[in-house]
């Protein structure tokens, strides 16, 4: 079939996009917004979508203003942006490894972030910013270690993943050793954090998390086209004039930065990065990994997962990571169903 393309050419920067991709993105974002409105209206104080929207545009009752703007909005904003960051990060890693399973959760980033948290919790203390810094340093150090260990005349996708598994194994052991060393209460708290959770986030995190993620997104929007070329394979990309190793480093940096900000804010949330790009690609029917739909899908997955985590087992609030694991499970079940159909 021929694909409808729309092209805008403002000078040297040519943007080509498919109508279907735009429609998919719009639908995903609309669903995410709807989920956000529902989420803003759910809780001890129940508000109708109309009341929520009124509060958002500054026309709400004082109580609605307090509940929606002061209490619930930051968490919803963070869920949307962190979800988008996870989806984008997963898309980058999957494009770089040219493998649907090449996501940051697979190459040990989450485990490393958790190691950082445990180290900080045990040796420094559990102030929020300390813990966030620990997660960031742990995740980045892990990613760097995996990259360096996998580097032999360039980084080959499969080698990166196997080294990731090995480093992951060491870190899981280290983490479990820590969990055994510290007392049950601390271990339990750390385990909750290690699952990834948006519980307890408020306006204090918004001013640095949201702008950081937005800046990284803009950076990707400017340079995203080379990623598609990298996906074609090193030889072809080189032939098309891409400096492959340099481009890979830049994308890897962006991907790590995105997942690092997300992890620092909310802990290692599993499987959104893995599933979002693939689901989005299935919807858009595009050949390669598309960035914008992956971001929209990530935002949708996380806002819905967080709503479930908060309200499905009320009054117990689950870490959102427990719900996203289920998303991962459902995603694999869907892959398996597709396999058995084709065989």
């Amino acid at each position, binding site marked *: 079939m021929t694909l409808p393309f729309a092209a805008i050419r403002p000078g040297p920067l040519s943007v080509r996009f498919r109508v279907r991709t735009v429609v998919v993105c719009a639908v995903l974002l609309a669903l995410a917004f709807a989920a956000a409105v529902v989420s803003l209206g759910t809780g001890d104080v129940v508000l109708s979508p109309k009341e929520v929207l009124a509060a958002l545009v500054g026309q709400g009752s004082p109580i609605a203003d307090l509940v929606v703007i002061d209490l619930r909005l930051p968490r919803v904003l963070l869920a949307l942006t962190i979800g988008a960051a996870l989806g984008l990060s997963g898309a980058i890693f999957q494009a770089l490894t040219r*493998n649907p*399973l090449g996501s940051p*959760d*697979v190459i040990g980033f989450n485990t490393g972030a958790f190691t950082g948290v445990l180290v900080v919790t045990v040796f420094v203390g559990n102030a929020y910013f300390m813990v966030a810094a620990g997660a960031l340093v742990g995740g980045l150090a892990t990613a760097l270690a995996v990259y360096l*260990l*996998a580097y*032999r005349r360039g980084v*080959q996708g*499969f*080698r990166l*993943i*196997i*080294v990731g*598994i*090995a*480093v992951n*194994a*060491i870190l*899981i*052991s*280290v983490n*479990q*050793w820590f*969990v*055994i*060393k510290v007392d*049950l209460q601390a*271990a*339990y708290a750390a*385990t*909750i954090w*290690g*699952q990834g959770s948006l519980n307890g986030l408020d306006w204090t995190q918004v001013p640095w998390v949201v702008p950081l993620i937005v800046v990284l997104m803009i950076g990707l929007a400017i340079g995203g086209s080379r990623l598609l070329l990298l996906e074609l*394979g090193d030889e072809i990309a080189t032939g098309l004039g891409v400096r492959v190793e340099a481009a890979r480093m830049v994308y890897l940096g962006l991907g790590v930065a995105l997942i690092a900000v997300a992890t620092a804010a909310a802990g290692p949330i*599993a*499987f959104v990065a*893995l599933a979002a790009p693939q689901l989005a690609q299935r919807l858009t029917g595009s050949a390669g990994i598309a960035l914008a739909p992956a971001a929209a899908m990530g935002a949708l997955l996380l806002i819905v997962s967080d709503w479930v985590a908060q309200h499905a*087992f009320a009054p*117990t609030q*689950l*870490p959102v*990571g*427990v719900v996203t*694991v*289920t998303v*991962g*499970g459902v995603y*694999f079940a869907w*892959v*398996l169903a*597709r*396999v*058995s159909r084709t*065989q």
Partner: protein
Amino acid sequence: MTTLVDRPSPETEPTAAANLRRGGVLLGAAALLVVVCVLSLLLGTRTVSPGTAWDALFHYTSTDDQSVVRDLRVPRTVLGLLAGVAFAVCGAVIQAVTRNPLADTQILGINSGAALFVVIAIGFLGLTSFTSYVWFAFLGVAVALVGVYLLGSASRGSPTPVQLTLAGVALGAVLEGASSAVQLIRPRAFDYLRFWDVGSLAGRGLDIAGAVAPFILVGTLLAVAVARSLNAVALGDDLARALGVDITRTRIVALVAIVLLAGGGTAAVGPIWFLGLVVPHLARWVVGTDQRWILAFTILGGPIVLLIADIVGRLVVRPGELRVGIVTAFIGAPVLIWWIRTRKVVSGP
């Protein structure tokens, strides 16, 4: 598509001489295993003399030192022997049947499957006796095996090593996540499982060893029974058929062996990382590529490596202990990194 090139070891030695050498290696390994078992009885936070250990076994007078040997270290050593055989033999069989040198119960997500089902049995069904939850471990292994195979064959008919490995990692991650979720929902189970799911030989009695021994024995015997056929399978399906090997039957027997070994081992001592990866590689390096020699070597080598790891774990952070699953991960992970760095990974059609 990516394939791995594993350099075939040149079988240049004349057969008789080679077999003599391999027999020597096995004798040496058996002697080493005896030494390691003795050390496992003597060494630890409280190191005892050989005489005390002897008395603990044969002239028991219930002194503190004797009871440490008799009540703690004997069960531990016996469990180490059993689990070492289970995981190492299981690894050798998986590697042979999948023709995947990277296959291991941990990498393929099989340990995680067994662990999740055990966690569910303990956390939700309240089962606490080993004989009741071991069946869940077998079920978990079977489910994980089917899952990893289907996931691995997502792209084309029969899964390549790379596909299978990645599928296993992903599936293992989901299963582990689910285990953590169950533990968070059931904090009481969490405290009990915290120690179990690292993989440890400590804190378990001879009753567990006795309960798991039959399963591991049967699994090992099945592995030995199909060793010859697995040699043929290694040459590829077509060639194996031409040699008159019933591939389907071989695979089914091998799978039953894997379920019994991985399920029994995981239920008894928790997941032990990478033992099934490292020991068969060591075996191929020492005795060559014949599955029968490899099995003979892994039956001895598995417990040697596991017990050494256990002793190391007892000694490095005295008076505390590093669990054996942690020590084997530390030993295995560098081997895995070295392996992948020294292999040519070719992209082909």
